[in-house]
């Protein structure tokens, strides 16, 4: 199972901080996962229609949407960071 995490306004809008789901059929990279989440419609479609507003981490390292994913990966979606 993939472990998906959402932070900041993504979590607020989706109403959840994370979920687990099987690796979608045919998904090889982050972009494929984004397409699967977008296909759910509703708030998911609204958020994942604009991946340029989102940053991603795979197994707690920053990644691009071209990064490969595999079953059991932890994939986090969040806005650009604003600490300090």
């Amino acid at each position: 199972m993939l472990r998906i995490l959402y932070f900041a306004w993504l979590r607020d809008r989706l109403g959840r901080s994370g979920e687990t789901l099987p690796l979608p059929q045919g998904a090889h990279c982050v972009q494929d996962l984004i397409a699967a989440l977008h296909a759910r419609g509703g708030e998911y479609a609204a958020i994942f229609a604009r991946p340029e507003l989102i940053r991603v981490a795979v197994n707690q390292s920053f990644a691009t949407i071209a990064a490969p994913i595999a079953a059991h990966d932890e994939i986090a979606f969040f806005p650009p960071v604003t600490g300090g």
Partner: protein
Amino acid sequence: MPRVTIRVQAEAFDSAHETALLLRGHEDVGGVAAFTGIVRGGGGLVALELEHYPGMTESMMRRIAESACARFGLVGCTVIHRVGRLAVGMPIVLVLCAAAHRGAAQEATAFMMDWLKTSAPFWKREEFANGHSAWVEPRAQDEAAKARWGSLTA
């Protein structure tokens, strides 16, 4: 090995105490540079709510700190970042850099803050007196400040 301390915590920190811990047993230190970030008020802001990504935040903070130690030849450094609700005027982040000489300590402090602001997974939500709240947008000048240092591993 440089002495590196990384913490994410809700509680306040004591800069003098942390400085003493950093210096303990290090007679080769000629200076400690310190930066304390404060929740800045204005525009009706009451507080910030800080969220982070447990695990990844600490590992990014450690990478940044170890990179600063290597690049500037630090004897050690301490980075403490607070999370949770912080009212205007409260300290939010502490960076201490100890080195043989002042220049390295001060440069390393700027380096660490520029990288922390843009690469450690923290997010701020602003809470206003009128009850509104909004997630803070990233600032282009923070990215530009980080870019002047090149890559983290350089």
